[in-house]
């Protein structure tokens, strides 16, 4: 019975894939059929996923890692004498992910029907396409969790990357009157490019592992002998020096995780990913995309832990803890409800990553699961709010001749307020989600977050592989972040729901349709209760994930402190925003108190701007230099040079003068102009620039070469002959040395 279902695991990603294919091939014109196909696909995955989860729950010892992972090869790629097997496996981590991913996806899918306006006048023109894309997205994530090798994992990883591009840019025709504001199309591109940076690093890690081990299957990679070998063997790299292969590989893989899980400094794409439809944000933030990065680190945790006290874990701990605090400070100053949540996601992901860094494996996975539920809830809730306000705005606009259509931003919390009575179901579910995020006892987030803090504190108190500094560092930063988290959550809840409506649109908001509120209520139930499975006294998660990992003892100090901070933070939030809710036109009190600091936070520490100044601007500048150089100097170089070779020396001198001196003068002028224009970096747009800047440089390279392609075949031959002659000459000069 159990074996039977386990052997069917590979079907889990296939169902949504079939739904995708079905919608694309047949159902596209029919919205109803598309909806049902997508629902059926993810629904079947959910049923099978939960079957497998509960079967493993019943007999967890059968699944203790790593020997009993039961990878089942579906096909193989023999390469030399090594094998690249492609298959699936079920172990406790997979089973746990199968509990969370398909269920949360299902909720989001159901919610999407209402959100995309099914059956209303405002139905999205690409309604069916949306369901096709999210099905493929779900397929990517589900495939990723059932993979038995890094190769398959990477394949699904990239499928997800692709879908994120398609989905974030789903409203690719959207333009804003404000040219500074990023459009969905640009946001999609930014997400794709930024995560791609991580992916390239990760690919190098995969290649490194493959070249060292000759296999990419988890069982082979994480076997005792392999890990030992990887930890013993060292590589020497320029700049970085000598390090064990395991460390290097782990760091490279972590590069991929940083991109996907939006860790500093690759976090910049995630807030802009809010440009996508809200269900997509929920998918990306909760169930799929960003979890993938944490999942990757959790999955390859044995590799990270292979070298005791190695740099890799310190890096992971630092990046995670720093990101957690960094993002939570930004979240305090965001007025866009979704952006606030986005920074909260980055921060929570930082928790998980930091937890993995200090070895709190169980706590990290636990937090991954609980976070998925309450963050999906919060996103869907915010979507419901936005949906409500937008509809209210439409009603108002109908009465008032469409004035100010463009200027109104339904995402801005300053345009909300007083929605508690208008949207009661959304409101109380959002409150539960917020409570879970803030870590209020006994909601889910409290237990998982507490476990992370307790583990770090324990490491500090009782010693750790990494010494005592890193655990303390992690504990301190995460505790501070917890305070901020509670504060900004309370701020959000109050700004959105408390008081009176600050705009007419908010005043006319209505509760969303049942297909949207039901998923909220179901998720709220889980967000409230899930933590009880991981209480320190009866830690079922520990039991499930594997008793191989050390349990974290309950620490009343940590629990007490974090509870106090959570309640305190929330209380402060309520005092500032809830006791006397803001009225229309009021300035955010925090903004008054913090002054310039608030501006910095509002602008996200100017990281985007920094990137522009440090990476983009120089690239553009170089490109300009290149262009200039090239225009003057290399047009038809060979032909020109040949032509010139015949003319007199005097003429040649004139030519030298013309080209070199003139070129230098121009170059200097250009450089001066560039430096002077460096001051207005801020007005340049990130995405345009990253594409155009890098592109310009690359194009300049191409342009440099292009005049050689004269269209005259004898020029081509001359190039070949000259190359041959020069190479031969060079080789003959060097040959006696060699």
């Amino acid at each position, binding site marked *: 019975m159990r074996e039977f279902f386990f052997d069917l695991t590979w079907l889990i990603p296939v169902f949504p894939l079939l739904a995708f294919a079905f919608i694309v091939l047949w159902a596209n014109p029919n919205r109803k059929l598309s909806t049902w196909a997508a629902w059926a696909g993810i629904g079947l995955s959910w049923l099978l996923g939960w079957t497998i989860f509960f079967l493993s729950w019943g007999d967890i010892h059968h699944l203790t890692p790593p020997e009993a992972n039961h990878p089942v090869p579906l096909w193989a790629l023999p390469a030399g004498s090594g094998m690249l097997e492609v298959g699936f496996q079920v172990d406790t981590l997979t089973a746990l992910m199968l509990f969370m991913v398909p269920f949360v996806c299902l909720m989001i899918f159901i919610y999407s029907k209402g959100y995309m306006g099914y059956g209303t006048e405002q139905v999205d023109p690409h309604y069916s396409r949306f369901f096709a894309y999210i099905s493929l997205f779900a397929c990517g994530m589900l495939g990723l969790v059932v993979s038995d090798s890094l190769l398959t994992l990477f394949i699904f990883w990239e499928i997800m990357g692709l879908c994120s591009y398609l989905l974030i840019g789903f409203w690719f025709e959207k333009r804003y009157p404000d040219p500074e504001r990023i459009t969905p199309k640009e946001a999609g591109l930014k997400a794709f490019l930024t995560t791609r940076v991580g992916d390239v690093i990760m690919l190098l890690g995969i290649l490194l592992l493959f070249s060292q081990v000759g296999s990419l299957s988890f069982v082979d990679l994480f076997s005792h002998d392999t890990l030992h070998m990887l930890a013993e063997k060292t590589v020497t790299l320029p700049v970085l020096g000598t390090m064990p292969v395991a460390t290097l590989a782990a760091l490279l893989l972590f590069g991929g995780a940083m991109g996907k899980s939006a860790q500093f400094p690759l976090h910049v794409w995630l807030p802009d990913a809010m440009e996508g439809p809200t269900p997509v944000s929920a998918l990306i933030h909760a169930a799929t995309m960003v979890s993938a990065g944490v999942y990757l680190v959790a999955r390859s945790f044995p590799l990270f832990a292979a070298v005791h006290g190695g740099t890799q874990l310190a890096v992971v701990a630092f990046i995670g803890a720093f990101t957690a605090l960094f993002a939570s400070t930004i979240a305090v100053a965001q007025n866009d409800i979704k952006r606030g949540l986005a920074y909260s996601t980055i921060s929570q992901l930082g928790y998980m990553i930091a937890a993995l860094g200090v070895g709190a494996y169980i706590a990290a996975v636990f937090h991954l699961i609980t976070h998925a539920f309450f963050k999906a809830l919060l996103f869907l809730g915010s979507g419901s709010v936005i949906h409500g306000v937008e509809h209210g705005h439409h009603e108002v606009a109908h009465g008032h001749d469409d004035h100010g259509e463009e200027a109104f931003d339904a995402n801005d919390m300053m345009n909300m307020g007083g929605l508690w009575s208008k949207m009661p179901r959304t409101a109380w579910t959002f409150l539960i989600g917020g409570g879970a995020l803030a870590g209020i006892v006994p909601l889910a987030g409290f237990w998982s977050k507490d476990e992370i803090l307790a583990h770090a504190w324990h490491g500090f108190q009782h010693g750790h592989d990494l010494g005592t500094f890193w655990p303390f560092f992690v504990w301190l930063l995460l505790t501070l972040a917890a305070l901020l988290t509670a504060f900004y959550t309370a701020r959000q809840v109050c700004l959105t729901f408390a008081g009176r409506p600050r705009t007419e649109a908010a005043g006319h908001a209505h509760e969303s349709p049942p297909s949207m509120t039901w998923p909220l209520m179901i998720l709220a139930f889980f967000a409230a209760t899930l933590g009880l499975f991981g209480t320190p006294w009866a830690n079922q998660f520990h039991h499930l994930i594997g008793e191989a990992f050390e349990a974290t003892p309950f620490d009343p100090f940590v629990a007490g402190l974090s509870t106090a901070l959570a309640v305190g933070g929330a209380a402060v939030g309520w005092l500032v925003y809830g006791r006397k809710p803001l009225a229309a036109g009021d300035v955010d009190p925090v903004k008054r108190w913090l002054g310039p600091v608030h501006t910095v936070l509002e602008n996200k520490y100017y990281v985007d701007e920094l990137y522009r100044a440090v990476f983009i601007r120089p690239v553009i500048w170089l490109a300009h230099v290149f262009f200039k150089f090239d225009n003057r100097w290399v047009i038809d170089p*060979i*032909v020109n040079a*040949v032509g010139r070779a*015949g003319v007199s020396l005097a003429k040649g001198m004139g030519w030298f003068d013309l080209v070199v001196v003139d070129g230098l003068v121009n170059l200097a002028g250009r450089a001066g102009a560039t430096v002077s224009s460096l001051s207005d970096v801020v007005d340049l747009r990130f995405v345009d620039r990253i594409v155009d800047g890098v592109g310009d440089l690359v194009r300049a390279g191409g342009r440099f070469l292009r005049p050689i392609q004269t269209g005259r075949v*004898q020029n081509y031959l*001359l190039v070949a002959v000259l190359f041959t*002659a020069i190479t031969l*000459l060079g080789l*003959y000069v060097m040959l006696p040395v060699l």
Partner: protein
Amino acid sequence: MTYAVFILFTLMALCGGVLVVTQRNLVRAATALVLSLFGVAGLYVLLEAGFLAAVQVLVYIGAIAILIIFAIMLTRRMVQGDESGLNRQWGWALVSAVVMFALFCYVVVKAWPLALGAVSAPAVPADSTEALGLALLDWEQYVLPFEIASVLLLSAMVGAVVIAREKHDS
């Protein structure tokens, strides 16, 4: 004596060659090509490859040179132009040809010394033409290239016809 003959043929081949690449008038260039090919045929004789020399005279000079002259006639307006026969990059072409020649000389002299003394080589079998024929038909030698060469000629023929035939409009 052999030296004198060698030098004669060499001069024929090289001077012919130089004329081929410098003569503006294509008909003269083609004539020079024939001269050069004769020189090369003479070198074959010196090298005791009589059959190849014969083939050179009959096939090469007979066929290729005629073919080329034929083409010149077809495109004859070129011949009367006033412009130079060389293109704009001839200077670089000269440089690279000279550099290549220098490189080759260096390599050749390093590998095969310029010894003027007693040079000997194994005797050529009396029936070398027959041996050549046998080699081309021998199952263990070059029958495959021989057959492929005929495929090549056939394809070239078909191709040339396809490309060069007058436009036939239906």
